[in-house]
């Protein structure tokens, strides 16, 4: 799901948004903190989501829009990328200042919800996460493909200047992309918290590497590809932990990504801009 968020901003705005893992982490931490403070976990999750969406809008204001206003076109500069990296670091440190660096454990309301098929354990939360992801991507592609808002978004992805002449309000629609980004990251963060039952200020880093790998494997800008890529990464991780242990977990993941880049530079499912009608 984080991969989908990455892919969305890349495909739409041609912008690798490094604050995505930070949003993910913030939402996870807030969910944990609110629940630890005695609130119902759903309330915690809602607060986490709210904060993440607001934070994403603030980020839009200060990275993408600021650079665009100053230099005409945000996408042609490394600046938004660098400034979003800046936000990542700021968020991490704010969280560390408040809650420290120790991983915190989270009492999942679904801790024992699992079942076994042929020796493999499936957690109900994992399955729900997968289902939700697929549902969301389905909804997202419906939104992009079938609605007026989606058409406006795809036009901005293709020719923002011409879209403006058609009366499309680019300044109001770009924040919508960032809101969706915030929402997706938060949801991913919350699901992560429930699944893994412990959170730390550094989970963002781990997830970012995997999500970027997932996005590249699936094909840049292709939201279905991002889901598939994410699943493949997850599977490679689980299998390699099983066979080689957890220490070298990054090797097979990045190895796979490199292999795919060498043989299929456009990713397994094709490099595509959101506008291209591929989904």
């Amino acid at each position: 799901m984080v991969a989908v968020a990455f892919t969305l901003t890349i495909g739409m705005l041609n912008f690798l948004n490094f604050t995505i893992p930070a949003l993910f982490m913030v939402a996870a931490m807030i969910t944990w903190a609110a629940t630890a403070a005695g609130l119902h976990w759903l309330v915690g999750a809602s607060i986490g989501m709210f904060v993440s969406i607001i934070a994403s809008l603030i980020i839009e204001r200060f990275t993408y829009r600021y650079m665009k206003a100053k230099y005409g076109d945000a996408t042609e500069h490394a600046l938004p990328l660098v400034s979003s990296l800046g936000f990542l670091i700021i968020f991490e440190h704010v969280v560390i200042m408040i809650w420290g660096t120790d991983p915190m454990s989270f009492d999942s309301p679904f801790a024992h919800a699992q079942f076994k098929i042929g020796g493999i354990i499936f957690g109900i939360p994992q399955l729900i996460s997968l289902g939700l992801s697929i549902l969301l991507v389905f909804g997202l592609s419906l939104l992009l493909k079938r609605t007026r808002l989606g058409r406006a978004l795809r036009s901005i992805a293709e020719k923002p200047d011409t879209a403006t002449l058609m009366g499309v309000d680019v300044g109001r629609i770009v924040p919508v992309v960032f809101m969706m980004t915030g929402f997706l990251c938060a949801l991913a963060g919350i699901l992560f918290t429930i699944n893994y039952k412990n959170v730390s200020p550094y989970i963002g880093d781990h997830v970012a590497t995997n999500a970027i790998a997932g996005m590249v494997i699936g094909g840049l800008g292709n939201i279905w590809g991002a889901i598939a890529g994410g699943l493949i990464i997850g599977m490679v991780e689980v299998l390699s932990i099983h066979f080689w242990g957890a220490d070298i977990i990054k090797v097979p993941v990045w190895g796979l990504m490199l292999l795919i880049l060498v043989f299929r530079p456009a990713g397994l499912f094709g490099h595509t801009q959101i506008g291209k009608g591929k989904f």
Partner: protein
Amino acid sequence: MSNVLNFTSVDKSFGGLRVIDNVSFNVKKDSRTALIGPNGAGKTTIFNLLSGIYEVDKGSIILDKNDITNIPARKRINMGMSRSFQNIRLMPHLSTLENVMLGQHHLANSTKENFFPLGLIKRNKWAARAEQALINAGLETYPGQVVSELPYGIQKRIEVVRALVSNPKLLLLDEPAAGLNSTETKELQTLLENVSTTGTTLFVVEHDMNFVRNLCQHVVVLNFGKKIFEGTPDEVAKDPQVLEAYLGGNDDNAP
């Protein structure tokens, strides 16, 4: 007859080069007016000033009694002005129908219409309206095709339809007949004549003088950023200054 457009004393320079030099003209309501001139005369620049791609350095632009000199490009389509481009500016990976629907983007602007899954509902009024516009232009065979895969002449006409569906008071067309064969040009002329009977004023940049003569009652002539003549097509064809401008420019399209 009143004017739908007053273009008054407009200057525009690019880095010291004056491209539009104190140009004034009016476009009469419900007329079919042409803007002609040799290559590089500044015709497209005038369209870009009208549609807000560039800001004027000096002068004013009044569209149907509203001063639009300095309003943002995005708002001008709401004021009743739309345009097509000399170099096609369709959204290359959207379908024909979607491109046309983009042309009426500003008309359907309630929140509900933003999120309504259009494609799933068969009898959607916006889709139906766009389809009808394509039928009127004889382009009904291509609604679902991605436009970048279509021939140039078709794309050119789709762009005209996209500008049309906004129901503009003033329709700006930058060389709509360029690249069309003679049959297509005839069809375009018929389409535009029909459009101009429905309360849309046409303002057309075109090199094809036959097309201009057949379509337009009034012609504004530009050379090196200055207006050099204004009159009926016949007057234009006889004016020595206009002939001089075209001969001096070695242009094959002299009127």
